């Protein structure tokens, strides 16, 4: 704390950077490194390695000397494939030359989108809890994050009326990430339509992170940009990490109107140049023939999801049914512990790693994020350990 103050006084670190809070669970991460035999439900990525045909395509590209920069916007073939893919999936036309940008993961796309549209003081509405990068990305671009609480009772879905209540004359955009990390919530079509309506009436931009769009169970994913009249005022961010098990490749994309993509491309070309060439070539292969692997993975995740949710409920933790991504977000309120305390003690006492809900916002208090992208054997073992833990600590 003292050191922080000194740094500020000396102006070594910018005010902007100082305003982003470091992850509150740093201590927890450090602790994790010192314990052996941990079963981790704390990850945010698939446990599959990238399908071999995709890896092979990248290896072949290296052997053939594709080691140079690509066009700033991304390899034309990749943008063409992407345009075809979005068209086929959502009946949505994006001009590959002017309306698509290949980025270093959705993370970069998110940062670019914010920097391209936010002026100092502009407000961006987002849900609480939400993915950890949303708030910092707004702050770093000079904007002001405005949180809309969501709750288990409403399946952690955003409500159009709650959003509307937060709109001021400074509101610039609504930033949404569904299927949701951390809750696993999926926005049903009828609720999205209402939010789209609010955005239109108030002339707001929709920035949507749909990285988990393939991972939905028993419900269809609705793309915000595909709703009637929404393409022009939506910035669609997505990528290959979760659907094709390609997290380490760092490849994502943004699709939006010409003006926004041009602005984002400008920033991208000065800060990043282009996404890694080999990863782009791998992404082409993923788009061309990765569909089968996606279907198989989704079926497998669904099995694990059902085992996880039933297991958590059997332990006595209330858990709303997550319909997307690969997270369950059970309530641990019955133990009387706070999220961070629960996560820390569970790790020390039973060697199971979960992420405290508070890492994702104030409304995450009383919840933990459990990722089920791990083998059934490990899920079952983790549930067993959690059962002992909860039984020991249940409030009398």
């Amino acid at each position, binding site marked *: 704390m003292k050191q922080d103050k000194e740094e500020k006084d000396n102006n070594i670190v910018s005010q902007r950077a100082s305003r982003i809070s470091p992850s509150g669970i740093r201590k*927890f991460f450090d602790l994790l490194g010192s314990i052996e035999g941990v079963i981790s439900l704390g990850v945010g990525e698939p446990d599959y390695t990238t399908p071999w045909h995709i890896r092979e395509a990248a290896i072949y590209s290296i052997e053939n000397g594709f080691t140079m920069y690509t066009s700033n916007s991304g390899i034309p073939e990749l943008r063409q494939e992407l345009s075809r893919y979005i068209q086929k999936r959502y009946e949505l036309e994006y001009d590959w030359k002017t309306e698509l940008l290949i980025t270093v993961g959705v993370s970069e796309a998110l940062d670019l989108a914010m920097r391209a549209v936010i002026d100092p003081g502009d407000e961006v509405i987002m849900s609480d809890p939400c993915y950890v990068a949303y708030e910092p990305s707004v702050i770093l671009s000079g904007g002001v994050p405005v949180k809309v609480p969501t709750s288990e009772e409403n399946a952690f879905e955003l409500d159009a009326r709650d959003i509307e209540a937060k709109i001021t004359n400074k509101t610039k955009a609504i930033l949404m990430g569904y299927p949701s990390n951390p809750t696993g919530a999926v926005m049903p079509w009828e609720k999205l339509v209402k939010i789209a309506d609010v955005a239109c009436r108030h002339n707001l931009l929709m920035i949507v992170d749909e990285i988990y769009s393939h991972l939905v169970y028993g419900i269809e994913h609705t793309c915000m940009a595909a709703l009637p009249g929404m393409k022009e005022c939506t910035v669609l961010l997505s990528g290959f990490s979760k659907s094709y098990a390609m997290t380490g490749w760092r490849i994502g994309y943004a699709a939006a109107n010409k003006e926004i993509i041009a602005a984002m491309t400008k920033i991208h070309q000065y800060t990043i140049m282009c996404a890694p060439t080999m990863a782009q070539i791998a992404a082409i292969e993923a788009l061309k023939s990765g569909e089968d692997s996606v279907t198989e993975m989704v079926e497998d995740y669904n099995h694990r999801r059902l085992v996880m949710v039933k297991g958590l409920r059997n332990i006595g933790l209330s858990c709303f049914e997550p319909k997307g991504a690969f997270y369950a977000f059970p309530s641990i309120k019955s133990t009387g512990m706070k999220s961070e305390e629960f996560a820390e003690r569970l790790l020390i006492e039973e060697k199971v790693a979960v992420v405290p809900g508070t890492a994702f916002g104030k409304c995450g208090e009383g919840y933990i994020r459990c990722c089920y992208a791990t083998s059934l054997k490990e899920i079952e073992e983790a549930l067993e350990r959690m059962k002992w833990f909860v039984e020991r600590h249940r409030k009398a």
Partner: protein
Amino acid sequence: MLKKILKILEDDARATPERIATMLGTSEDEVTAIIKKAEAEGKILKYKTLINWDKVNDEHVWALIEVQVSPQRDTGYDAIAEKIYRFPQARSVYLMSGTYDLAVLVMGKSMHEIADFVGQKLSPIEGVRAASTHFIMRRYKEDGEIMNGKEEIKRQPVIL
């Protein structure tokens, strides 16, 4: 539902009806009933274990034998195939398209034993025109499973 259950069992024969029911969001009774029926109808033949015998210092020898036969009136390839697959040494027998007719996977205690089987049992069968024996030197992958050096998952324990 049957196909979904079979897919789970094919991957893990030890999956209990309770676990399968949870995985598919159905009842244990339904799963048990479907499995019983599939067993009765011969859709499920047997529950087996995939073993990496190389790690057990097993001395067995495997060979793939390409067999050319003269198909017979009325029974075609079937009668000759049956004469071969009746031998317990023949672990798998397939009718093939291409340059030979039957592929026979044979297991024996030694190369010698397999040579005896081919020379004394298989080749003399009426209708067998030729048999060429290929010994298996190493198994890299069996039934979709990589035998040695399966990829480890290299992930960080916590990623937000």
